[in-house]
């Protein structure tokens, strides 16, 4: 049986959507000690005072998931064709416990947390999304990676029958989609394996049944619908880097100082933007999570390792 509902969290503990939208008042009230309720600290990490939760219909209808087509609306239209139950995950490489596991067995008994993260796409738009998920380190540790595991590589499902974008003759992507992290990035407490959003199951177009969320990196690092986890000694070659290394790097940390060759990264449009208000705001180093993660890259030339 698939355990999609986070078992360890009572529905009474899930913040209702209207509380999300009134978050600033909520936090202000919390700061004044007027309420005993409070989101766990990590749930708010990196959020700016004027960050507002993006409406759910935008988060679930405006997606880059090229497995279903290159248009932003394609994933919401076609992702239902993907079967997510049963879902098995292959674990391989530099770890003691490798093999093929049922998705529900991997996450069984694990606490699902709620995290409100800023989400910044490399195309210079951004959102604020209430995710539900499990810290990636909790998931990876059960496979007992060995000392040789320096990186972890993820792979998206490859199933052209159900993922029409993978049949495309006019695509230059070599499926399946691949992404990877350095082990210290993967084990960072902010890195989340997402199983839901807005207190609900993760919709297919957002990467069901589980997807990565690395809030300080451009969105393409946060790989969706994962079927393979491989611990490696060498740096994985992620799909976009393989396709266009001059534009997309392995690290892909949000960095307003390093522009993409085809668009500026200095600012971003926060969705929903309207015709008369682009809702443009400056992009922050590490997407606003510099305090938490900048130390991971101490001494590295971030212009070279973009």
């Amino acid at each position, binding site marked *: 049986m698939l355990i999609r509902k986070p078992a360890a969290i009572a529905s009474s503990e899930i913040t209702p959507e209207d509380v999300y939208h009134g978050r600033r008042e909520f936090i202000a009230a919390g700061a004044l000690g007027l309420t005993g309720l409070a989101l766990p600290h990590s749930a708010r990490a990196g959020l700016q005072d004027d960050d507002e939760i993006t409406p759910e219909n935008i988060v679930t209808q405006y997606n880059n998931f*090229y497995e279903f087509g290159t248009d932003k609306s394609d994933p919401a239209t076609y992702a239902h064709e993907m079967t997510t139950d049963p879902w098995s995950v292959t674990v391989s490489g530099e770890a003691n416990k490798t093999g093929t596991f049922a998705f529900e067995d991997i996450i069984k008994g694990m606490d699902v947390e709620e995290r409100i993260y800023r989400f910044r796409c490399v195309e210079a738009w951004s959102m604020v999304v209430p995710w539900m998920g499990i810290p990636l380190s909790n998931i990876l540790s059960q496979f007992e990676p060995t000392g040789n595991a320096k990186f972890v590589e993820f792979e998206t499902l490859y199933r052209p029958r159900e993922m029409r974008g993978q049949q495309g003759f*006019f*695509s230059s992507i070599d499926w399946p989609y691949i992404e990877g992290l350095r082990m210290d990035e993967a084990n960072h407490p902010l890195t989340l394996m997402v199983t839901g959003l807005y207190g609900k199951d993760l919709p297919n177009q957002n990467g069901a049944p589980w997807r990565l969320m690395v809030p300080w990196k451009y969105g393409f690092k946060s790989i969706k619908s994962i079927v393979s986890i491989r611990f490696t000694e060498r740096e994985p070659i992620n799909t976009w880097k393989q396709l266009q290394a001059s534009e997309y790097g392995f690290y892909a940390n949000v960095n307003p100082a390093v522009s993409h060759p*085809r668009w*500026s990264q200095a600012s971003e449009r926060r*969705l929903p*933007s309207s*015709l008369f208000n*682009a809702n443009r705001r400056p992009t922050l180093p590490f997407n606003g999570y510099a305090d938490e993660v900048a130390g991971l890259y101490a001494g590295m030339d971030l212009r070279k390792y973009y």
Partner: protein
Amino acid sequence: MARYLKPIIVSALLVPWCWLAYRVYLETLQVGSGLGADPVEGLIHYLGEWSLIVLLSAFSVTPLSRQLKWPVLIRSRRLIGVFAFVFVVTHALVFAVFYAELQWRVFLREVIERPYITLGMASLIILGLLTVTSTRGWQRRLGRRWKQLHRWVYLAVPLALLHLLWLRKDGYADVFIYSLWAAVMAAERIHHWRAGERQKQSRQTKASVSI
């Protein structure tokens, strides 16, 4: 039929504008309902796509009128061309007003730093020149040079196609279709030009024989 040709073409060219007006109207009722979550991008892409379609339509008039042996069609060429330019200008204006938010520095920096925008802008300038000189008055004034000037469309079309190709991250189906369309129309022109050359040559040989 010839009498109704222009009204039919104008009505057809107004359809994308009506559709756009309807989407913008929806958008004013509720943000995100008419033009998607990123309305500025939605608007720019919509206008860009129609710019290309109408430009390619204008580019197709001459070959079509030859192949269909329907010279009346030529009379609608300017009309379609001017419409194409209106789409292109609106496309660029939306970028300047809504995307760059009328900050000319932002606008200029984008045009200079992003090669695909540079190409699009070059195409726009050419099409602007062609539009301005499309009147009978300019045709008379420029005489032989008018034809030479309007051959610049052979540069404006590939620039527009490159502009689209270069901004894409992946998924080139439409770029392929538009390029094929342009290639077919260009091939007809080359074919026609060669036939003309052959005729000229045979006339010359005949002339020399009669001497």
